[in-house]
């Protein structure tokens, strides 16, 4: 059973963590697509930006001598999310709104989002160089060990405090978003606009306000996802390029424009990635005696370097098999 616990440690826990990061990122992408009808390529960079804002705030907090039972990254997360939401609004105001007013096609907005990507990336690199940063230079990661009350089990289920908090944060964000979309007037207006923008406008919905709220939510969630990613691995200016593919894959797999689909897609991609790079030989080794062949040392489906291919292959399969995603998505 030790092997099973190892499986839980490496696959289930990291899959849940990765899945929540992807899900939170993909919700932003899918909301923007639903309302504004374009694939927002700068989302990965907005995540990186959010991560850096949180990093700066955490640095300030620890310099001010604030000590908390949770990592400072989580302590400052709400403030960072507010700042990131404001920045997202500013980005929309200065880059996308003028183009929308001119009546540009969604494709032009897509190209504009490349420009935004480059600008955000340039600014981050200008201030932080190209090195990598960690939230845990000054404080240690707290490790939880849970003993399994079963005979002859020596391993424990391990996870870190940030990982636990991340999952809790994601759950909170998802529940809050659910209530916002189904209960509040604005949330209903948002869903109406994502179903049919023209109809929403003629029925008296303030579409400009809806667009603003979309950017606030997307910016805040991007900041959260970026901070979580930075807490889980490390913070680098070029984090965005590694994350953009799984996030878009999650959003498309779930059906672009479908928030719940994005959550499902995020967890699907997260688990698929961890399952694919897991070394299955470890799990099969106890059964060696009953197997007709000898097990090789490494039996991962794909080598770790090719983790990225997993998201892509899932994306292609879904596109071929069900082009609108698992939940039926919107079209341009």
């Amino acid at each position, binding site marked *: 059973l030790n092997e099973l616990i190892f499986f839980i440690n490496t696959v289930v826990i990291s899959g849940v963590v990765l899945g929540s990061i992807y899900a939170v990122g993909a919700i932003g992408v899918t909301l923007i697509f639903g309302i504004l009808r374009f*694939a927002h390529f700068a989302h990965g960079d907005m995540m990186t930006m959010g991560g850096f804002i949180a990093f700066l705030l955490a640095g300030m907090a620890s310099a001010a001598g604030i000590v908390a039972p949770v990592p400072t990254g989580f302590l400052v997360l709400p403030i960072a999310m507010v700042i990131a939401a404001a920045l997202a609004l500013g980005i929309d105001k200065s880059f996308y709104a*003028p183009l929308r007013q001119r009546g540009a096609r969604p494709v032009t907005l897509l190209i504009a989002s490349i420009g935004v990507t*480059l*600008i955000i990336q340039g*600014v981050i690199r200008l201030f932080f160089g190209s090195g990598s940063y960690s939230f845990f230079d000054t404080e240690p990661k707290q490790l939880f060990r849970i003993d399994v009350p079963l005979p002859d089990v020596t391993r424990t289920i391990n996870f870190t405090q940030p990982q636990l908090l991340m999952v809790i944060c994601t759950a909170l964000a998802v529940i809050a978003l659910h209530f916002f979309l189904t209960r509040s007037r604005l949330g209903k207006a948002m869903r109406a606009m994502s179903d049919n923008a023209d109809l929403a406008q003629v029925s008296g919905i303030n579409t400009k306000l809806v667009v603003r709220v979309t950017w606030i939510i997307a910016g805040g969630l991007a900041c959260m996802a970026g901070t979580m990613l930075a807490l889980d691995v490390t913070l680098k200016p070029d984090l965005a390029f590694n994350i953009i593919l799984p996030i878009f894959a999650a959003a498309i797999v779930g059906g672009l424009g479908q928030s719940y689909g994005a959550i499902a897609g995020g967890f699907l991609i997260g688990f698929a990635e961890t399952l694919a790079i897991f070394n299955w030989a470890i799990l099969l080794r106890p059964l060696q005696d009953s197997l007709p062949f000898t097990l090789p040392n490494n039996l991962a489906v794909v080598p770790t370097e090719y983790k990225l291919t997993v998201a892509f292959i899932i*994306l*292609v399969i879904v596109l071929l098999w069900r082009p609108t995603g698992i939940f039926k998505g919107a079209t341009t």
Partner: protein
Amino acid sequence: MMQRSVLLFAGLFCLFAFVGWVLGAANISLLLVQSFAYALIALGLNIQWGYGGLFNFGIMGFLMLGGFAVTFVSYPINAEFWNSEGPFLLARALLAFAAGALLVFGASRAHLIGIRGGWKTALTVLAWAVAYIVYRGQIDPAVQYIEGSAGWVGGLGLHPVLGWLFGGVLAAGVAYIVGRICLGLRTDYLAIATIGISEILRALLKNMDWLTRGTLTVSPIPWPTPLPQALQAQGVSISDSFVYSRLGFLAVVLVVVVIAFVLVQRAYGGPWGRMMRAIRDNHIAAASMGKNVTSRQLEIFILGSVMMGIGGAILVSFGQIYDPGSFQPINHTFLIWVMVIVGGAGNNWGAVFGALLIYLTWMVSDPVAQWLFGMISEQTTQAGWGPIPEIQSRASQMRVLVLGLVITIALRFAPQGLIPERVRRER
């Protein structure tokens, strides 16, 4: 219209002359060769996006393929590999690959023997799995053996121009596969899919140490024209030798660019180009007129990718080093998009103009930013705030910001580009 483009090109020429005067002949000849190689790549993207309206965010992947092709073809032969068991093991892996491909193909034809619906899907999945396991079973030991003994396969020792052609062929092959899977998807999906492809190509080429030496990098890759060292051996002074040899390389590149330009420009005016624009502007109408939209788009996707592959091969053989780790989406995908958008999508003169202008801006913004930062740093030191730390590394990041600003301004004030596509109206 015509006047405007002539003026713009004259201005560009003056700009190059000025930069050349400041930086010296050796630097400007280097810049010229690279910017014309980028012009070829920009022409490739201009076909795909400007003529055909296809989103390709995977340019980096095709450039890497071209680079790999020229490395593989023109690098000297690695005798140690050919004398070892390596070729035999690789041939077995190739055979396994072929068998796997046959199996998958067979499964996709299963409906001919009466297996349909869910059974066929199951059979196809099974065939893929079996093929993958068989291939991995053969390739893994081969890779281990080669990396343990000879290091990598080495090159073929042929002429670099053959390598450029092979780069085009390889890019065409990959573009065919990508196009078959992804074309017909919506614009946004195509963009994501091509990003995915290029990232996968990067992961592959970076990690296949047996084939590309991965992060160990391969150098020196030979030139089609005499190298500076060869000229120095003939008694040319060191500073002149760099200029002459680079000018020689430039001549070859110019020939390639001019041929590509003439072909592409002729195609634009011809029935083929007209059909492509019709498909771009309204593919439903074009389809109802009897045009096979998907296969025409596949055609144009492959054609553009070939030019990208050749351009990438030229860049790598000019730089003499193949380092898969040095390829980045910003430098090799988005830079080219900025070139085409700023220059004018759909107009070949615009694409070439954009390529030359943006590459110059990209290369020059580094020293300019360094100079600017130096000035500011002096001011802040005088004001008592101390100098800006790490000016060198910060200034080199400045060009990403400049690139982003350029494309944003272009989209805002000249959305059609500096030399826009001329829409001819027949009366």
